[in-house]
């Protein structure tokens, strides 16, 4: 049974990591038009416990994208400098959508596996019931 519970907790950790990634993607998309906003990125890391890889996954520290902020020309904007432009965000919507799709795909894969492990363990307990 430990293998099943292992597999379930690993799949759950994968779903959790993908969900938090999706949260950062939605934060980025919501702040596309916020002046000076830098895109947030998270990296996934495998959990190592006492030198042994457990297979669990977790999200690392949130980092900010160091790419240059987009300069928007709009002399009427309150934040515009003497050249008539201000710094927007460095969020690229296309990248965010692609990222969200990837997160969704991986999330579904984890969910499917979770469901399968559940089925396997329930068919095992079915034998005991007879």
């Amino acid at each position, binding site marked *: 049974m430990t*293998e099943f519970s292992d597999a379930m907790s690993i*799949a759950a950790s994968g779903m959790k990591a993908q969900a938090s990634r999706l949260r950062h993607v939605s934060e980025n998309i919501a702040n596309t038009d916020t002046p000076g906003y830098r895109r947030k990125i998270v990296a996934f890391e*495998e959990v190592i416990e006492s030198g042994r890889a457990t297979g669990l*996954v977790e999200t690392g520290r949130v980092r900010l994208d160091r790419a240059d902020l987009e300069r928007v020309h709009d002399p009427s904007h309150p934040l515009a400098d003497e050249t008539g432009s201000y710094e927007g965000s460095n969020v690229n919507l296309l990248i965010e959508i692609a990222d969200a799709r990837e997160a969704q795909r991986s999330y579904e894969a984890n969910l499917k596996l*979770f469901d399968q492990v559940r089925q396997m363990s329930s068919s095992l307990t079915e034998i005991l019931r007879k």
Partner: protein
Amino acid sequence: MFNSLDVLQTAMDMARHAGARQAVTAANLANADTPGYRARSIAPFSEVYDSAPTGGLHRTRPGHLSTGQGFGSAARPEFTDADPAPNGNSVSIEQEMLSAVEIGREHSRALTIYQHSLEVLRLSIGRR
């Protein structure tokens, strides 16, 4: 056939093997987007079964000496030689889904064999 109940033992080993493989597959899928993660896999049951130590001392009780490492330790996860993506990750979600289905079938096959053997046993002692 039921002298030493080898059928039940083999079915149980097969189910256990499926469980171990499933755990490895779960780890691969969870780390499908982890940079630098290398996919692992456990060899199919037939290969593991062939390589498991047979013969030697026969154990009829748990307290007896064992000659080999037994069945369970023969199934060790190994790195696959799939080409890694630019971020060093070599997990292919499609491949993992495929092996997950395969494992599910292996597991249910083992359980069916187990169940059926038990049924035959039950029948032979006159219970239905």
